[in-house]
């Protein structure tokens, strides 16, 4: 096992397929996902943004959570969960194939859509569901790209796919027409649930969910995600993950450029009685500006600046998704 390297997931999938490899292509980042290959053909894919076969079958009531859990317990170790469900007559071959095909293309979209992500290939890894279908990886990669294009044709704002969904309190027009799927989404969107949460809750495909959400956004029925760059006069510099921009940081002036006055905002940590910081300041030499950005000094107990506090905790790339999903299914069975 190599350490994850950053690359295009689609390109690596094609290479693994050309070499007719068997194993799992693990794509990190958010949402990321895993594509399973057998002799160069795709057999399954999963992603945290796409409900899996178990979630779809149990959320819809097609299988009792107990039945699914029993099949998991008995078949996970030998990777024959799907075979067990068929042999015990819980589900038909046609249903299982259609379900696995749907889930595979759905999860593959989330795993492969991003141009670059940390990717890793685990040789010989097999999914616990067992092999139900085999799909041409080129078709999977092509479909993932086509799906990304289709979303942008509906409403080109990819932030809708990840941020919590908030319905607008008042529709923008007198009369609105909704499909059943859109109604279901609006009724369950509470300002906290992300599209992935909604897909899991409703037992719907992840892609179909964000497709409807983009349509709702185009209709003006859900709040557009807040723009990150609110004030065009204040340009935030790119920063390293886990650190923040020093508000005092100044851009080194171009050597021969015209001198432009730089407006430096007052220090947020200053007590109200203190005199404002002297401005404008002389730009510092390039040396200190190239240091990694530091947090501005704060008073004890003061809150973190909003832009740092709002940053989500970094997802640990090694989290065992399968284990987490199993725990969740087991907890559901106890209800």
């Amino acid at each position, binding site marked *: 096992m190599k350490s994850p390297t950053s690359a295009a997931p689609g390109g690596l999938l094609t290479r693994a397929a050309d070499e007719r490899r068997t194993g799992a292509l693990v794509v990190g980042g958010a949402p990321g996902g895993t594509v399973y290959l057998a002799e160069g053909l795709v057999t399954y894919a999963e992603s945290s943004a796409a409900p899996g076969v178990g979630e779809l079958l149990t959320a*819809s009531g097609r299988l009792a959570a107990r039945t699914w859990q029993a099949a998991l317990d008995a078949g996970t170790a030998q990777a024959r969960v799907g075979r067990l469900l068929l042999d015990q007559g819980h589900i038909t071959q046609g249903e299982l194939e*259609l*379900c696995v*095909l*749907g889930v595979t*293309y759905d999860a593959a979209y989330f795993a492969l859509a991003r141009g670059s992500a940390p990717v890793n290939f685990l040789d010989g890894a097999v999914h616990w569901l067992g092999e139900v279908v085999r799909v041409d990886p080129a078709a999977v990669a092509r479909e993932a790209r086509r799906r990304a294009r289709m979303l942008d044709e509906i409403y080109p704002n990819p932030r809708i796919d990840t941020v919590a969904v908030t319905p607008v309190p008042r529709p923008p027009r007198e009369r609105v027409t909704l499909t059943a799927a859109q109604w279901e989404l609006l009724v369950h969107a509470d300002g906290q649930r992300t599209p992935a949460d909604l897909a899991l809750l409703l037992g*719907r495909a992840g892609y*179909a969910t964000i*497709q409807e959400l983009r349509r709702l956004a185009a209709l003006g029925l859900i709040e557009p995600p807040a723009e990150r760059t609110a004030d065009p006069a204040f340009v935030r510099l790119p920063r390293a993950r886990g650190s923040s921009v020093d508000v005092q940081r100044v851009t080194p002036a171009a050597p021969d450029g015209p001198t432009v006055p730089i407006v430096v905002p007052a220090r947020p940590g200053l007590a109200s009685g203190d005199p404002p910081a002297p401005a404008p300041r002389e730009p510092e030499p390039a040396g200190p500006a190239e240091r990694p950005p530091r947090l501005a000094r704060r008073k004890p107990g003061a809150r973190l600046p909003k832009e740092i506090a709002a940053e989500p905790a970094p997802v640990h790339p090694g989290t065992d998704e399968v284990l987490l999903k199993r725990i969740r299914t087991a907890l559901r069975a106890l209800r």
Partner: protein
Amino acid sequence: MPGVENCLQEAMAIPGAIGASIVDYTTGFPVATTGAAPNEDHEAAAAGTADVVQAAQSRSLFVSAVPHDLLEDLIITTAGGYHLLRLVRTDFDSRLVLYVWLDRVRGNLAVARRRMERLADELIST
């Protein structure tokens, strides 16, 4: 026990069948295909199929004229053939349609409709 491949093989056994596929109509993607497709392009045919189903299902109001009414199938008749679209209703979340292209002369619309109804049912029930 019929799988997807088996279902499509049986669809091709319908008198006059030229091609068949199962299409996801939200994304317009052919999940499984067999035989010929209009212009030899199964993916383009699937995208067109999706447009037609969505037009009937959500953009027009035919299916909501009566409460609990459901779209069952769509038939497009051309000079050369019939294009039959039958919705496959699974218990779990999916949006699938069985598509069969029939030759106008050799095909029998009534027979094909009945056979497709049975195929769609058999695919998802025990």
